[in-house]
């Protein structure tokens, strides 16, 4: 999309790799593992996004209506993407995803269902996704975030993202997982 994108020179990591199991700050046993492509996991994710609080949408995603949620999920759950789901039993509590941008780099996004926010799940979801991406040979990852979303920006900075673009509505942040090939 934008081959002029900048990335940090310093390599971040290493990061944990999925599967990851932990007890969150509310005492719930959470397991993060790659999306297995099954209908059951797809439906659990669709359910999570249908329940998603509209106030927590960012830049139009997740979309508001179920039909649009499914169209969107079909795109980001495709074979060339990398997806992790955080499970509380059979409930999808969170989701992180890497989508190829056509320039050998990947766009990252992360979503945590309202009831599961501020419990440490987001940090594990993003770190294990970066570990997963690195193990799959991804060198560089970027994202955009609304500049007022301080909680998200802090989380991204904590794991090693740097601001690489600040001249438009959204901040662009990027991280390097490995040296260029």
């Amino acid at each position: 999309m934008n081959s002029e994108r900048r990335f940090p020179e310093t390599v971040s990591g290493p990061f944990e790799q999925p599967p990851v199991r932990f007890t969150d700050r509310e005492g719930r046993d959470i397991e993060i593992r790659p999306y297995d492509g099954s209908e059951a996991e797809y439906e659990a994710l669709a359910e999570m996004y249908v329940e998603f609080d509209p106030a927590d949408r960012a830049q139009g995603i997740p979309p508001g209506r179920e039909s649009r949620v499914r169209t969107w999920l079909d795109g980001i759950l495709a074979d060339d993407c990398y997806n992790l789901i955080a499970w509380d039993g059979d409930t999808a509590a969170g989701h992180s995803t890497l989508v190829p941008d056509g320039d050998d780099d990947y766009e990252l996004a992360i979503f945590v269902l309202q009831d599961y926010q501020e419990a440490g799940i987001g940090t594990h979801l993003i770190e294990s996704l970066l570990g997963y991406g690195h193990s799959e040979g991804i060198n560089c990852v970027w994202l955009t975030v609304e500049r007022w979303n301080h909680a998200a920006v802090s989380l991204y900075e904590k794991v090693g993202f740097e601001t690489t673009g600040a001249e438009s509505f959204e901040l662009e942040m990027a991280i390097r997982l490995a040296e260029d090939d």
Partner: protein
Amino acid sequence: MNVLVGVGSPNASPAAIERTIRRAARVSDELTVAICSPETATDESLEATVTATLDDYDIAASTRHVEGQPGSELVDIAETEGFDEIVLAGGQTSPMGKITIDKTVEFVVLNAHTTVTLVR
């Protein structure tokens, strides 16, 4: 109403350009399409998309080419030539599906004294 449509955002697809022009035509009495692109190569394909859209939907509009910074040029044209509204494609998305607002759109939204419509 006198409406100025700006096309030429780097990420706008032909479909987005068509949608934007048709949307503007619905509310305008007088329509001007400003083709904004510093590069001649993309300028030609942009112009082809604009011409095809105007022909296909039988829309009467004048077209012109804008050089320099598209955002400030559009705002300046709207102000000095008495346009009532600026219409731009505003639904570009990242690979993830996130809506992204490019620099031209941001400049126009923040600096125009007319109404600005972003078409999705």
